[in-house]
């Protein structure tokens, strides 16, 4: 098949927003200012993990000079909201269920007065027993966090069971129990991962405005303006078109900026005070109220035959889902499909329970459930290979899913690049399992992971200006460089230079629906919509040119600002001339494109980590990291590589140092000192190689890239640690304390058996 030559697709084009980002001109949510100034809002958040609200008295706060408004649940329509399961309120009414749960909000002339006002609100709480662990929540007699669980409205994905199980689901094929009985050997282990926070550098911030016509305008740092707009409108009790959500630049999202945070409070304060109100979280609040990655317990049982095949597996997954279903509950729908990982297993059951606890409500975080389950799956592959005396790479190759593998959800998976990606990762790193370690306490580890990327629905409008330059009207938020890629797509399709294509993020009233800038599919989804819009524009130009060129549209092409007859470059008419003609005939040329949800396809990653362990302290130093990723076609390779670098380092944090620690019901480390994310001295340069084969669908063959690279990181590092010092820690993060303890216990075991 001939590889097409492109003008902009596949080129390393610099981001179109570089000038604004590199000079500090880019406006993030807290930077948004208004001519008349803004009021400063603060939210009163529950100090208890679980309590009944007996009374709220805000009179003293309201009376403080400089306080302009105070709102509570009573200022909002009585209704429950939620993206998947409607189990929460914008401001708590009767019950608070985690430290940080919103109880009231104030708006004042200065942040200092707002802070004083918070302290002047008297809330009488009746503390209730707090459940801080998923298994404790499942135990008989545990406090029930949502007594009305079975009355809540299910919007999507959730399948509440009752008690503290906010969702339960399982999928299977074959008969694992029967198959285990026939296996050469069966392995059983349990893995555990702790809750981790996105730790984007920009805390949540928003600005609420109540307009003279009774509508609202809300500026927010969000990855998904349309979903957020809907939640805000629902909570305020107004139709969607009465809330204009203006997305600002986003200082990192990773899934943590999809949910509703303080926007409803800001909007209600704006209405009550008559002034715009900014609510900007401080770092502590953002840690408390963010929507972290669920902690997970995975019981995994695997049966193999003597031929090296995976025959049967069961995975029983318990997710610590936090205080509300939020979007963490989506994992009960997705994990039974995705947690088969890169392999094809003929007898398989994956069961998931999402459990309420009095912790922050969990949400989406870069491949939700992926790193956790891959940690289990890829640790098992190495353990099994070692026990059976098999080469671990051959064991994987034998069992990877084939092209067209049908997932547990019945989806046929296409563009399966498992083997190619493995080869690329092994070539880049030079890794061979049998190689001797170059020094004591050094080792290399491999992991193969995949994440099913797809696309959700988006629409775009493309208009041509009179001179033939183009403006793409889109609501997709640009964090990763997607706007540059969209400009590349339009420039390629209409043969325009990049400077003649404008892409801006518009608000929810100005742009048609956009998918979220999350889930590895913004580029694919909005890119497809933009491409369709460009084709629609081109079609209209051809129709306008038919008469002038005396040729049917099928014989026409668009090149360098001219519509011309293919093969006869002399017969052409300039685009501005056609646009001028259009004004008198069919009207302005506007194109639109709409794309529905795509079927998911797997994106594979094959990673090799090189570590050095200090056995005395348990500290792990990452010496080298190689990542091969299967990307379809990289529309902008710089952006794609950047995603891989960033995802890997974020994954390193999850592997070695990040966890939200809770003591006595309270988060003990809501700050960057005690919640340690990798700094520049903690990681080496990340080496990435892109494996490209055009995906069957998607603009120019692109596939999603945001999430897949984080999936294999923890297992690659865990496997490297095992190669280095011969121990495994089956809990993430593999902190120095945990590793040191494991090394000592192994030492004590050896001494004990030596002394027998």
């Amino acid at each position: 098949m001939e590889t097409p030559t492109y003008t902009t697709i596949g080129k390393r084009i610099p981001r179109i927003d570089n000038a604004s980002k590199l000079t500090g001109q880019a406006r993030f949510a807290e930077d948004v200012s208004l001519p008349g100034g803004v009021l400063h809002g603060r939210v009163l958040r529950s100090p208890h993990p679980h309590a009944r609200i007996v009374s709220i008295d805000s009179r003293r706060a309201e009376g403080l000079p400089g306080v302009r408004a105070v709102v509570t649940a009573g200022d909002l329509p009585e209704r429950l909201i939620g993206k998947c399961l409607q189990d929460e309120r914008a401001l708590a009414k009767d019950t608070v269920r985690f430290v940080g749960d919103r109880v009231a909000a104030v708006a004042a002339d200065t942040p200092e007065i707002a802070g004083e006002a918070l302290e002047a609100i008297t809330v009488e709480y009746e503390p209730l027993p707090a459940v801080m662990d998923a298994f404790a929540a499942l135990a008989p007699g545990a406090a029930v966090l949502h007594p009305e669980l079975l009355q809540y409205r299910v919007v999507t994905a959730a399948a509440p069971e009752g008690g503290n199980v906010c969702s339960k689901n399982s999928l299977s094929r074959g008969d694992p129990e029967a198959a285990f009985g026939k296996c050469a050997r069966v392995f059983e282990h349990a893995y555990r991962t702790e809750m981790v926070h996105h730790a984007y550098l920009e805390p949540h911030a928003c600005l609420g405005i109540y307009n003279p016509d009774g509508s609202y305008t809300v500026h927010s740092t969000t990855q998904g303006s349309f979903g957020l707009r809907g939640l805000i409108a629902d909570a305020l009790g107004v139709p969607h078109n009465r809330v204009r959500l203006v997305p600002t630049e986003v200082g990192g999202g990773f899934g943590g900026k999809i949910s509703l945070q303080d926007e409803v409070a800001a909007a209600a304060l704006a209405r009550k005070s008559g002034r715009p109100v900014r609510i900007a979280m401080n770092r502590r609040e953002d840690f408390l109220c963010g929507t972290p990655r669920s902690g997970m317990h995975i019981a995994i049982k695997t049966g193999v035959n003597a031929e090296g095949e995976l025959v049967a597996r069961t995975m029983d997954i318990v997710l610590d889902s936090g205080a509300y279903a939020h979007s963490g509950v989506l994992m009960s729908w997705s994990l039974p499909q995705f947690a088969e990982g890169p392999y094809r297993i003929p007898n398989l059951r994956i069961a998931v329970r999402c459990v309420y606890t009095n912790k922050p409500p969990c949400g989406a975080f870069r491949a939700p459930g992926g790193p956790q389950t891959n940690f289990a799956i890829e640790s098992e592959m190495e353990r099994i290979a070692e026990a059976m005396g098999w080469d671990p790479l051959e064991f994987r190759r034998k069992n990877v899913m084939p092209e067209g593998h049908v997932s547990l959800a019945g989806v046929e998976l296409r563009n399966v690049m498992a083997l190619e990606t493995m080869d690329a990762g092994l070539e880049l790193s030079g890794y061979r399992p049998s190689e001797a370690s170059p020094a004591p306490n050094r080792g290399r580890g491999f992991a193969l992971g995949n994440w099913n990327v797809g696309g959700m629905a988006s629409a775009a409008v493309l208009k041509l200006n009179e001179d033939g330059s183009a403006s793409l009207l889109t609501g997709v938020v640009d964090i990763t460089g997607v706007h540059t890629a969209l400009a590349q797509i339009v420039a390629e399709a209409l043969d325009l230079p990049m400077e003649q294509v404008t892409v801006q993020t518009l608000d929810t009233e100005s742009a048609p629906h956009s998918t979220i800038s999350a889930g590895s599919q913004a580029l694919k989804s909005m890119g497809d919509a933009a491409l369709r819009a460009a084709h629609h524009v081109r079609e209209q130009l051809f129709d306008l040119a038919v008469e002038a060129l005396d040729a049917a549209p099928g014989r026409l092409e668009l090149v360098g600002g001219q519509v011309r007859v293919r093969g006869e470059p002399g017969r052409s008419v300039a685009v501005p001339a056609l646009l001028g003609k259009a004004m008198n005939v069919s009207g302005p040329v506007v194109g639109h494109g709409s794309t529905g949800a795509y079927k998911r396809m797997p994106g594979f990653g094959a990673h090799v980590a090189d570590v050095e362990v200090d056995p005395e302290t348990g500290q792990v130093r990452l010496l080298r990291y190689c990542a091969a990723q299967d990307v379809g076609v990289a529309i902008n390779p710089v952006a794609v590589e950047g995603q891989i670098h960033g995802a890997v380092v974020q994954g390193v944090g999850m592997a070695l140092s990040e966890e939200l620690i809770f003591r006595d019901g309270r988060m003990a480390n809501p700050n960057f000192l005690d919640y340690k994310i990798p700094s520049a001295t903690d990681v080496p340069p990340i080496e990435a190689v892109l494996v490209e084969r055009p995906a069957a669908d998607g603009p120019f063959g692109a596939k999603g890239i945001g999430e897949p690279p984080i999936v294999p990181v923890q297992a690659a590092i865990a496997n490297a640690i095992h190669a280095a010092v011969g121990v495994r820690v089956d809990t993430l993060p593999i902190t120095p304390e945990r590793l040191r303890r494991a090394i000592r216990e192994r030492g004590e075991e050896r001494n004990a058996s030596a002394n027998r």
Partner: protein
Amino acid sequence: MHALELTVNGTPHTVEVASGTSLLTLLREQLELTGTKRGCEEGECGGCSVLLDGALVDSCLIFAVEAQGRAVTTVEGLGDPEHLSPLQQAFAETGASQCGFCIPGILIAATALLESHADPDDETIREGISGNLCRCTGYTRIVEAIRLAAQLRRSSG
């Protein structure tokens, strides 16, 4: 309230600040220079990095009054969209900025580093930006950009 005179990006300012106002708040709220970011207000993330008489500091940890009679440099003083500095150009060419939130602080830290190191190796560069957290880029391209900037500075004499 305290009267305060300071120079920011070469421009003298006379302002009044309330007790306890941080330099960060003065820059962002009163002088409307919002390029410097508020990431943690605890001196952990480096988003608020500025140069104070050429020294790299976290402006969230400095009281505004400590800047009395001193010169502050923020990202706005490094270049503007029509005239990117060589350092900013190196970042643009390398593709070192993703969400952009950490970038002002990182550019300030890099500026301080390059003033004292004409030819820093990777380890020195990483040490120089170790007080600036980035969650998007994994630091790989940022380090490449600073190395390129050092090269550009050396070749332009």
